[in-house]
């Protein structure tokens, strides 16, 4: 009788949210990181004109033998991990490489020689990775190595898809428009060889 009464009271308290439900009690809550300061280590002055970005996705898996004693004729199931990664490659030109001899101005005519386009960044942040499957124990260093390979793959694919040529063409267009906007009539913009 007393047990029944206690159970009814608990049930009622849970209904009016004075007590957490049994499901919530054992529910796994996300672990939150502690508040820590952000320290500025370096401040670098840049002068980059970013003209194109390429978004790409890769999926990679890796497996390794399990660290267990083996028996004759029996191989244990290897440890396995599958990662999905999204990356953004940005390309453009470095304006600090333009010096006096690359700019020629005569009245309303201007001629500019731009430096060769280059990859300025390849961003694959922690939020861009997803662990699709993980079996066994994988150290941080092993996972980092897979992520670096994924990043290299994305960079390779961006270069294969002619990101630098496209960045160069866009840079010519952007600088041309800028010069036209600031009053020049005859404009010649080209990429240096």
């Amino acid at each position, binding site marked *: 009788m007393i047990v029944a009464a206690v159970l009814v009271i608990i049930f009622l308290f849970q209904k009016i949210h004075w007590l957490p439900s049994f499901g919530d009690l054992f529910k796994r809550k996300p672990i939150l990181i502690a508040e820590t300061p952000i320290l500025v280590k370096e401040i670098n002055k840049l*002068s980059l004109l970013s003209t194109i970005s390429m978004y790409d996705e890769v999926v990679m898996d890796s497996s390794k033998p399990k660290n267990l004693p083996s028996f004759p004729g029996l191989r244990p199931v290897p440890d396995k991990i599958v990662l999905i990664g999204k990356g953004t490659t940005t390309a453009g030109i470095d304006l600090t490489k333009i010096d006096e001899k690359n700019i020629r101005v005569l009245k309303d005519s201007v001629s500019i020689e731009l430096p060769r386009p280059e990859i300025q960044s390849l961003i694959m942040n922690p939020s861009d990775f997803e662990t699709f499957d993980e079996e066994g124990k994988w150290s941080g260093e092993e996972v980092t190595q897979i992520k*670096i390979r994924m990043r290299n793959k994305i960079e390779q694919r961006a270069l294969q898809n002619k990101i630098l040529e496209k960045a160069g063409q866009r840079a010519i267009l952007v600088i041309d428009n800028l010069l036209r906007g600031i009053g020049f009539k005859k404009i010649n913009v080209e990429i240096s060889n």
Partner: protein
Amino acid sequence: MRLLSLFCLFGFLFITAGCKHHNLKERQEKAMMLKELNDLVTVEYVVTKIIRASDDTWFKIGTRKILMSCKATLRAGIDLSKITEKNIDIQNKSISLHLPHATLLSLDIKPEDLKTEYEDVSLLRSSFSSAEIDAFAVQGESNIRKSADSLGILQTAEINANFILTGFLRRLGYEKISIDYDMVNTPLQ
């Protein structure tokens, strides 16, 4: 009968192990997406942060603690596509430019710049999985992104943009150069 079951189990394990043994390879490729940009990147901040987390769920025996260090690179600058004809005023050798405010253009945390410095796991608990470590890193990334404004990166980006554009316009023959910014600050991307 028991011997037969055992044989079947071993046989299954052997076949599974043989089939799944393959090295790292690319599995899936998706279509690329191109985006045209007009960003003038003028500053880069390199920052560090310690990521600290502990898992002491009451219904599990023992605790797990982790300490990670993280290095991030933030870049800020001006979106030149927002400059239109009405933002430019030219009179002979003098030019006046009205620019949009600087924005945070990128945040980059390289996989190798995220390191586990310390991990303490009780005997009855399993160590942190790769997915769990990634989840902490994602929270760290989010914290850095939210704090970018307070680091003063946008102000530095605008000061540098003034310097770069003034030098560029001077080389193009302008003698009097004036640069100012929108009154309303644009939110962080």
